[in-house]
């Protein structure tokens, strides 16, 4: 009984983590940027969806759309305001650009977080579920929205796969991750590729944020832990490897759910963190990473 419960809850949480981490790893793979404002963008999406539904009286579908749109917008802003100026700056030595991007996106995330706290308070917000009601699976009462969350995550990840591997735009993105210079020689504007990638990232983070807001609820305090969990999943899976991130998301998601049910919710994140340290020690490039 409990095992089934863990299986269902863990699947939903893992699928959410996978969605969030996929966008994160995509950005890294294509433009080498680790975006530490990730958690802030997810929370902004959830809060926007909540505000649209409860302040502006929209229905939950439109609310979710508003949330995703806000995330895509913020993601583009992140690129134009924070990342691009650093990448183009001639005052920052190339080998230090990485740390500058990390610090700058971290500050940017704090700014988003504080703006949310200022306008919408620090209180936890739960986005109204899109599908109401409860479903019984083999005697386990599960909110229908949990299943919906899992389904949407899987669908979006599948769509992403099709987009990257089967469409022209996707192939350009893929090529840019392998050889940016080659792509420019073929006549593609690299900035446009980056814009596409950041929009894809924003949409993914937005969907993950809105779904998380329905599933667990978010507050501006969730920003740090969300960024940290995406970062850990991506590193655990191997930076830049999408399939690695997916596997890692399920490992972390199930480990956390298992700990929360079997030991205590207070210990929830500890085993995953310890696992990460062990993996860092034995296999620094992550599960599926290349060196």
């Amino acid at each position, binding site marked *: 009984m409990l095992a089934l419960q863990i299986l269902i809850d863990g699947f939903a949480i893992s699928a959410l983590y996978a969605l969030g981490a996929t966008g994160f790893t995509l950005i890294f793979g294509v433009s080498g940027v680790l975006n530490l404002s990730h958690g802030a963008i997810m929370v902004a999406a959830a809060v926007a969806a909540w505000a649209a539904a409860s302040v502006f009286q929209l229905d939950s579908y439109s609310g979710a759309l508003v949330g995703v749109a806000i995330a895509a917008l913020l993601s583009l802003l992140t690129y134009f305001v924070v990342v691009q100026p650093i990448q183009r700056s001639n005052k920052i030595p190339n080998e230090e650009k990485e740390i500058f991007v990390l610090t700058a996106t971290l500050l940017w995330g704090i*700014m988003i977080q504080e703006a949310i706290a200022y306008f919408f308070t620090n209180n936890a917000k739960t986005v109204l579920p899109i599908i109401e009601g409860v479903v019984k699976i083999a005697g386990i009462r599960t909110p229908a929205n949990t299943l919906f969350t899992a389904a949407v995550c899987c669908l979006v990840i599948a769509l992403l796969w099709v987009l990257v591997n089967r469409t022209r735009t996707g192939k350009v993105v893929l090529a840019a991750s392998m050889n940016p210079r080659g792509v420019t020689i073929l006549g593609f504007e690299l900035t446009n590729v980056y814009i596409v990638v950041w929009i894809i990232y924003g949409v993914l983070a937005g969907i993950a944020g809105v779904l998380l807001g329905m599933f667990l609820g978010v507050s501006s305090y969730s920003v740090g832990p969300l960024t940290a969990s995406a970062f850990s999943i991506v590193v655990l899976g191997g930076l830049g490897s999408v399939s690695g991130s997916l596997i890692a998301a399920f490992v972390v998601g199930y480990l956390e759910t298992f700990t929360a049910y079997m030991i205590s919710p207070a210990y929830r994140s500890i085993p995953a963190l310890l696992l990460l340290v062990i993996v860092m020690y034995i296999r620094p490039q992550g599960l599926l990473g290349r060196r």
Partner: protein
Amino acid sequence: MTNFFKSPLFGISLILVIIAATLPWYVSGYILGLLTVAYYFGVFAMSWDLLFGFAGEVNFGPTFLIGTGAYTAGILNNHYGLPMYPCIALGAVAAVIAGFVLALPALRVRGPYFGLTTLVAVLILQSFIVVFADLTGGEIGLTIPDVLSIDAGVNYWIALGFMVVSAAILFGLSQSPVGLVLQASGQDPVQAGALGFNIVKHKLAAFIVSAFFSGLSGALLVFYFGTASVGTVVDIAVGVQVIVAAVLGGRRTVLGAALGAIFLIVAGEFLRPTGELATFIVSAVALVVILFFPGGFLGSVLSREARS
């Protein structure tokens, strides 16, 4: 090194320190209290800069070292009734051990992986503090029975003296041959290794020195506050503040990091009337500095001097 004593930087620092030392005679206890905290933060930021600016290692978890020092000192004082000074010394020792433990696995990896390992160390420490609440006071914090001094002026002088001594040692180290080797191994580890320097040993040493000063400063800070809590010495937000201070003041300058820390703390206090927007404004200012003046306060001044 001898050049430094003739440079204007030395003269300016000396004058600033003398002015700072006379402050308790004419400013209010409130400002002294503020600066006291700022000086301890200055030491955090300087030790961080030694690791990042010179060894080239992005340590996202300065609070792992600070928190270990602070909590070790606090727990020994609160639960075992050890006198204050041994507690502070043991806090620093604990931080050095923590730095060693962190450095061993962390030095095997580079760049973002290293950053993440240090970040995770903070999260683990934070979880342990919350889980072992009987020992650590959990989320509420740990009360420390002893205090450094009840006089604001004396507290201020202790902090100032501590910062000046730490600054002298850390700056001296950064300008010494050891500092140069560190800088070389941070910028091009392969070439530095090829020149026959033991990079791992140097980086480990940098880690230990950084940990020592972070831990010592953390332990002193809790004896000044009279409490140790996650929010003041462990939280990632505190670590971010340390990093921002160092980058703002000018990385690879050591002294700039202290200036950045003082600026951050004082600015945060001045902006207090704006309420929750204070953090937003400070972060925005820091972001602008990073984007447009990547050298930071001291970095811009020094490079202009070097050019002229």
